[in-house]
């Protein structure tokens, strides 16, 4: 098959799966997940074929796979949409395909396929477990299958469709289409257990917060389209277009390219949960864990960063290579600030998934900051490595929770939160595969030197920041990295090491193969993927393996960015922060028995700097107040309708005046009654000739006719 045709086909299987499941197979769990996983596998295979073919093409950057069709007629021209796989696209497609496939597989186990239906499970709430009787007559409570199992896979399919669309699209509009479809799916999936008010609110929050970014992004797209007349990447990223954009002044003292990039970047801020639109992401943990992995690690939030990487030429169109432009400064600032800010919050969280959520925000901040300082390849590299290890971590945490739920069902104490790390401890013996893979993921996140992928990518960012002299960014990121290592170790320690802190933790179980297989696969990539991007300047190792990633992805751009000069300072820094953070984390938490002994339970951090409360006070409630009281009650009901209602009395007054002073005396009395009286008088005189006898009428009529006819004839026609 033609590669371009294949690319067109990649997003379609999940979409078909979505429709099939929703319309036809939603009653059969087995059929539904077969279709969904099968579709994911098809897309996976297609993606891998495309990826391998992309590797085989020389100068893929100049001659990417591309194909387009007419879509919207716009006046005399057509707006075309199409697919594009250039080096960046290929690299992203690779990790997206793997993680999506893994997550699909994982979901089968996570939703307890094969287990009995729950005793009193209802749709819209997580399953509560089912009571079964074994052959000895003992009653056990075992996990029950998710009541909306089929629906989950349908949503996942749609989500996958959105992500693939985003990755393969050759223009901003279809990228945005995929982007928004994922937004919808995140809404649906976060609110999957919509019966829980918290999940419902989290879903709305996620959708609305990202939508704030989206409308700006839409504006940016409109701006870009207006200014260049096209949205296709390869048509925008030509020298002339970029130059024209860079030299066009726009508002707020920025160039057109800068403003467009900023607007598009705000979209990313929403999608990738950067400060100040980060608030939705931790709440989004209300969804089932595969969703968390899907949204936070593999796809959706990465999509935000991917979009900025895509638009990097635009972002840097008016950049001379040294002084950061306004836009880039903003980007770098937000990225760096978010990285640090989220890391500090993560330290104080006890929910195993929330920690990871804040860690995600923080890591995304890393990438954004890297882009803000022009470190294109490093950002892309970190995006991919992060996707692998963060997906691993999320799936791992899901596995942990799943194991804990076993314990909860076993003891029957439903007050125990299976997600609270302080209820865990010592799980490494109960869940060895989960433990080891989680450990790999955690070390990769912390940047454990040399072995893990996270080290290489993070190091490259730090090196870039240092190498180009952005010291503020460098320092901030370094601190964030230290905190990252710290809370990661805190998490591992609290969860897996030590002794079980609760009865439930003692009865936790390892999860089925459908869940552990993805962990192993992802763990593999979390380690090895780093080795494809080792800088050639790195001592000793640098020459052993070629820096394939830099070479490959770098060629996406017209000018391949230079890898920064090697320097010991960033290397040492990253070594120190990673190892130091890990060590400190282990030391601090190895003996902690309960929450009260945790020194980092600072209210400010625990409550996320009170951002939710502030937003609620500053935006949400005023908006509602404005809507209800000002717009609806005051403007519509009061002013406009009041004005309208005033017409009534006015008209009535006029009318009654007319009636009383004109109609009644003049019209009624004089004209009306008068004519009636005259008619009455005549009628009285004439009624004698109405005898009721039809023949007499006829005679009368004939006489009249003859007389008039004769008169007419003699006096008119004859005369």
């Amino acid at each position, binding site marked *: 098959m033609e590669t371009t045709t294949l690319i067109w086909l990649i997003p379609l299987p999940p979409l078909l799966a979505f429709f099939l499941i929703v319309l036809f197979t939603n009653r059969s769990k087995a059929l539904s997940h077969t279709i969904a996983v099968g579709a994911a596998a098809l897309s996976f295979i297609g993606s891998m074929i495309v990826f391998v073919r992309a590797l085989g093409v020389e100068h893929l950057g100049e001659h990417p796979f591309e194909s387009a069709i007419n879509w919207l007629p716009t006046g005399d021209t057509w707006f075309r949409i199409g697919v594009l796989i250039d080096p960046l696209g290929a690299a992203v497609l690779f990790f997206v395909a793997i993680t999506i496939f893994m997550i699909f597989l994982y979901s089968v186990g996570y939703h307890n396929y094969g287990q009995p239906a729950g005793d009193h499970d209802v749709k819209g709430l997580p399953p509560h477990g089912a009571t079964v009787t074994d052959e000895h007559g003992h009653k056990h409570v075992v996990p029950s299958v998710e009541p909306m199992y089929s629906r989950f896979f349908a949503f996942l399919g749609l989500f996958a469709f959105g992500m693939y669309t985003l990755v393969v699209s050759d223009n901003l509009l279809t990228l945005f289409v995929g982007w928004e479809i994922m937004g919808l799916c995140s809404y649906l999936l976060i609110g999957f257990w919509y019966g829980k008010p918290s999940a419902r609110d989290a879903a709305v929050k996620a959708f609305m917060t990202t939508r704030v970014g989206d409308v700006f992004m839409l504006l940016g797209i409109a701006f870009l389209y207006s200014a260049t007349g096209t949205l296709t990447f390869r048509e925008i990223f030509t020298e002339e277009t970029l130059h024209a954009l860079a030299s066009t002044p726009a508002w707020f003292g920025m160039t057109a390219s800068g403003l467009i990039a900023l607007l598009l970047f705000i979209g990313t801020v929403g999608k990738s949960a950067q400060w100040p639109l980060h608030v939705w992401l931790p709440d989004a943990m209300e969804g089932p864990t595969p969703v968390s992995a899907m949204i936070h690690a593999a796809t959706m939030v990465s999509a935000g960063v991917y979009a900025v990487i895509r638009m990097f030429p635009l972002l840097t169109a008016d950049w001379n290579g040294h002084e950061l432009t306004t836009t880039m400064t903003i980007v770098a600032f937000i990225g760096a600030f978010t990285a640090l800010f989220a890391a500090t919050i993560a330290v104080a969280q006890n929910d195993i998934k929330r920690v990871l959520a804040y860690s995600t925000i923080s890591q995304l901040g890393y990438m954004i900051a890297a882009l803000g300082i022009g470190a294109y390849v490093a950002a892309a590299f970190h995006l991919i490595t992060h996707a692998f290890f963060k997906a691993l971590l999320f799936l791992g945490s899901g596995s942990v929770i799943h194991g804990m739920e076993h314990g909860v069902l076993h003891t029957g104490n439903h007050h125990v939160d299976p997600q609270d790390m302080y209820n865990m401890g010592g799980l490494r013996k109960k869940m060895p595969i989960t433990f080891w893979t989680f450990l790999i993921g955690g070390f990769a996140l912390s940047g454990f030197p040399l072995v893990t992928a996270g080290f290489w990518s993070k190091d490259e960012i730090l090196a870039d920041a240092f190498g180009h002299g952005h010291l503020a960014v460098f320092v901030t990121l370094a601190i964030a990295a230290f905190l990252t290592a710290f809370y990661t170790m805190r998490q591992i320690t609290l969860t897996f090491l030590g002794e079980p802190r609760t009865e439930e933790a003692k009865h936790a179980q390892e999860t089925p193969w459908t869940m552990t297989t993805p962990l192993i696969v992802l763990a593999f990539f979390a380690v090895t993927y780093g080795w494809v991007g080792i800088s050639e300047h790195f001592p000793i190792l640098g020459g052993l393996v070629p820096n394939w990633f830099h070479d490959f992805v770098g060629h996406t751009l017209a000018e391949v960015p230079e890898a920064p000069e090697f320097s010991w300072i960033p290397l040492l820094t990253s070594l120190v922060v990673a190892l130091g953070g890990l060590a400190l984390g282990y030391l601090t938490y190895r003996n902690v028995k309960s929450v009260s002994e945790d020194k980092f339970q600072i209210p400010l951090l625990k409550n996320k700097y009170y951002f939710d409360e502030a937003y609620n006070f500053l935006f949400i409630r005023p908006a509602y107040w404005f809507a209800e009281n000002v717009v609806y009650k005051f403007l519509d009901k009061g002013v406009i309708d009041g004005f309208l209602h005033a017409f009534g009395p006015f008209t009535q007054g006029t009318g009654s005046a007319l009636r009383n002073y004109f109609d009644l005396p003049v019209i009624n009395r004089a004209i009306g009654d008068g004519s009636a009286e005259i008619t009455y008088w005549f009628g009285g005189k004439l009624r004698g000739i*109405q*005898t*009721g*006898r*039809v*023949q007499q009428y*006829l*005679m009368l009529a*004939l006489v009249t006719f003859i007389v008039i006819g004769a008169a007419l004839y003699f006096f008119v026609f004859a005369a």
Partner: protein
Amino acid sequence: MVPLSWYLIFAAALFSIGMFGVLSRRNAVAILLGIELMLNSVNINLAAFWRYGDVHLMAGQVFAIIVFAVAAAEVAVGLALVISVYRSRRTVVADEIDMMKW
């Protein structure tokens, strides 16, 4: 050949006779008989004009046929009315059916 005037005078005479019947008979059915005569005289005229004009123009015959239809309708309704009146007032004398006056 018969001149047109014969037909017309014949029709006029028949018309007048019919009219006399309409004006003078007491019985409502007889009045309707008179009306039929009048209608027939009209039809004679129509047929005669057809014959004495251009025979390819069928208007005269067409109208005669429509007069047939009208006559049939008129008789049906008229006689139904007569019977209805007779049923309620036990008379068909036109002079006695004079309720419709002031």
